[in-house]
């Protein structure tokens, strides 16, 4: 570690107003893109890459990293306010964030999301700066076998996000797994359940499905309540979380940031998985797991710190191995190459200044995110006070535009509306929706990597138990599953006790 050069890089980033401006523009743009359903950080970065042709590398990379950090946080805003994860990584934030908003605590949730995003992003960036060489090796250890095991481990989280009924959660999960088999077979290329429609050849597109199940379904049930429920009395004056909230969440933020950084460093596993895993871990280790799902601040802290820590984690294999850690860093790889820089071991040898500038930009971008976010929180939170009659049509239009914008395909708009109806019905009968998302993310990962393992081994199942990391992950999956079933029993017991006490109180 060359500390002199690192300080010099911070100077490059913070003292050059061009670079500083680029970061602030990037962060502000990123938060906006992230908060809009259908527009993700990946798209934001991809669309801006061409504008970096012919601009100095420090400035272009600073802006792209700003979008990356801002976009990750931005997703939580719409998740909390309108139950629409702005990006897939914010899907887990809906679980606790939205109930908080509905209770009138949108300001508190947004402030925590911002603080957790900042802390997570900072921890991820610091690990990237100081421990890259140690973490980088993990990325290459992961073969198809490990990815299959990782997907299994991820799926073991389903019970934790199932809400009140395990059976209904598992049903939702399997429904999601079934959906994920639609489209081209990942190994033979044979189209499955596409009914001759080209639009289905890659399965139901993820973002339109996400918008349908969450945003549109919620709009339908809001229409039902229109004129019946009163306007939410929101306290929105807050822009940083209270000391008490920070104290209750500090432990979770630390743990989730570590989980996020490691998951981020594994190529192909991103913020969405990290957030769900952190949520489940927060619930598992909580003293009052029965309160999860009702709007608990620790939940928001866990998911938001995890997905933002992922950004730093995903940069590690990109910079040190030339292997992108997630979708955004895959686009960033292109941006580097256009600048004439090839990420990887050579970048460290020949352009250490660029590497350190990236470190510095990432850390400064997180600070910029905190500043821009803190200014914005008051304004964002006002959304919740808007009358339903006005808000519902606006969100509906935004949802449809967002689902169309992803790949300019009208079919995706129909898909969104269709999943809106499905989501509405499921919600009405208390089937949790998050397991579907988790299954849609992890189903293809599990299937393709299991099949890849079978191709390589020639159909010999022993390959699955031949590698230590894979076995470790599978054992962890079983342990987690057992723990969450046991935990669930405990939750049910406590809830019945609470009911009994309430009933006694009423009769007495």
């Amino acid at each position: 570690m060359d500390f002199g050069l690192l300080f010099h890089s911070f100077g490059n980033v913070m003292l050059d107003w061009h670079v500083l401006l680029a970061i602030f523009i990037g962060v502000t743009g990123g938060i906006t893109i992230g908060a809009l359903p259908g527009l993700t950080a990946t798209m934001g970065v991809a669309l801006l890459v061409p504008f970096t042709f012919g601009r100095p590398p420090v400035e272009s990379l600073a802006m792209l990293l700003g979008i990356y950090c801002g976009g990750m946080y931005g997703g939580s805003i719409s998740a909390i306010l309108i139950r629409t994860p702005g990006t897939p990584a914010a899907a887990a934030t809906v679980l606790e964030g939205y109930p908080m908003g509905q209770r009138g605590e949108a300001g508190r949730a947004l402030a925590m999301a911002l603080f957790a995003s900042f802390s997570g992003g900072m921890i991820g960036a610091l690990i990237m700066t100081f421990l890259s060489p140690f973490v980088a090796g993990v990325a290459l250890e992961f073969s198809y076998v490990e990815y299959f095991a990782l997907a299994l481990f991820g799926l073991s989280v389903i019970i934790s996000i199932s809400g009140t009924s395990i059976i209904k959660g598992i049903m939702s999960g399997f429904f999601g797994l079934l959906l994920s088999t639609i489209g081209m077979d990942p190994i033979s290329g044979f189209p499955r359940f596409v009914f001759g429609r080209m639009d289905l050849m890659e399965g139901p597109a993820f973002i339109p499905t996400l918008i349908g199940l969450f945003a549109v379904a919620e709009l339908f049930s809001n229409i039902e309540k229109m004129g019946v429920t009163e306007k939410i009395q929101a306290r929105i004056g807050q822009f940083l979380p209270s000391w008490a909230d920070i104290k209750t969440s500090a432990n979770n933020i630390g743990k989730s940031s570590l989980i996020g950084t490691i998951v981020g460093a594994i190529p192909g596993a991103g913020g969405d998985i990290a957030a769900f895993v952190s949520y489940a871990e927060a619930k598992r280790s909580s003293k009052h797991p029965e309160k999860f799902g009702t709007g608990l601040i620790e939940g928001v802290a866990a998911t938001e710190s995890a997905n933002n820590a992922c950004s730093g984690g995903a940069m590690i294999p990109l910079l040190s191995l030339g292997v992108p850690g997630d979708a955004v860093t895959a686009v960033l790889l292109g941006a580097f190459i256009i600048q004439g820089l090839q990420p990887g071991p050579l970048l460290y040898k020949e352009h250490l200044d660029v590497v350190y500038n990236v470190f510095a930009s990432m850390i400064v971008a997180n600070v910029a995110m905190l500043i821009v976010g803190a200014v914005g929180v008051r304004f964002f939170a006002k959304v919740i006070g808007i009358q339903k009659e006005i808000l519902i049509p606006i969100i509906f239009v935004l949802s449809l535009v967002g689902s169309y914008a992803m790949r300019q395909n009208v079919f995706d708009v129909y898909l969104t509306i269709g999943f809106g109806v499905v989501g509405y019905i499921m919600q009405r009968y208390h089937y949790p929706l998050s397991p579907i998302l988790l299954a849609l993310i992890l189903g293809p990962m599990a299937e393709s990597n299991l099949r890849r393992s079978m191709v390589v081994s020639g159909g010999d199942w022993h390959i699955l138990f031949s590698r230590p990391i894979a076995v470790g992950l599978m054992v962890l999956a079983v342990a987690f599953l057992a723990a969450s079933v046991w935990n669930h029993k405990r939750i049910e017991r406590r809830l019945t006790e609470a009911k009994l006490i309430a009933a006694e109180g009423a009769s007495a």
Partner: protein
Amino acid sequence: MKRRTMLVGIAALVTGVFAAPAMAAFPEKPITVICPWSPGGGTDVLLRALSKEAEKFLGQSITVVNQTGGAGAIGHNAIRAARPDGYTVGMITFELNSLPPQGLIPFDYKAFDPLMRVNADPAALTVKKDAPYNTLKEFVDYAKKNPSEITIGNSAPGSVWHIAAGLMADKTGIQVKHVPFDGAAPAVTALVGGHLKAVAVSIPEVRGQVQAGNLKILGVMDTERDALFPAVSTFKEQGVDVAFHTWRGLGLPKGVPADVKAKLADSFKKAMETPDFKEFLKKTSLNPAYLGPDDFSKFLAQNYKDVEAVMKGLGLAKK
């Protein structure tokens, strides 16, 4: 008097409105370019760089629209079905010739009006740096001695690099296992991690890892050596007569007026010749391979026949 002036005025206005389109030169509004692949990917970045240069010669802005999905099927279909007024151009890629034999799309290259070929990149057989073979022949010998041990990663089932690897195995008579990934990048990562024996993807996709000393190229499936790695010999030089490329080009829907097509062809050709675009190709180590509309048409027909024949031979085509 007043009424007459008004009538004359209206008449003049009407004539003006109807006459204007005939007189104005194409293009008089922004042009849309369809990319069948995701934003930020290789095709997308190339198309955006090219469009940025072409704007100068067309005098209008160009918007790149990513209509992705179905292994390129959705985007190609959108190009084919676009209004043939020249305001929608599309980037067509190798998959246009490999999807029809698989029975995945109900149309083929004949549904397009080809504008120009932009680049063509050969497959390069790439292995780990510390692998016990240094030439194609040693690789083949090793594969024959250790059957069922060679795993070759590709970018998708039936994709260009799946076909390239199949063709190589077929011509050298070795047994290999094809492992499809979701794109070339994860396959290259798996190779670097030692979870595969080889990949047969293009040079831009392995360049970084080769330069970093993690991978080495055993041969390129081209008639000439690569500019960036002149020390690597071709397959033909090593006694295996295989040349196999992926390509990208621009196409129009059928029925675009000839003068409009000429203007587009001319502007995009000029865009390819600008120093900035040449610099871009150099940095991304893409291999420029310009062909004009007529040559590109002939190339597409020949390439279709070749690809279909190879896919049938490998059992990748639908019977």
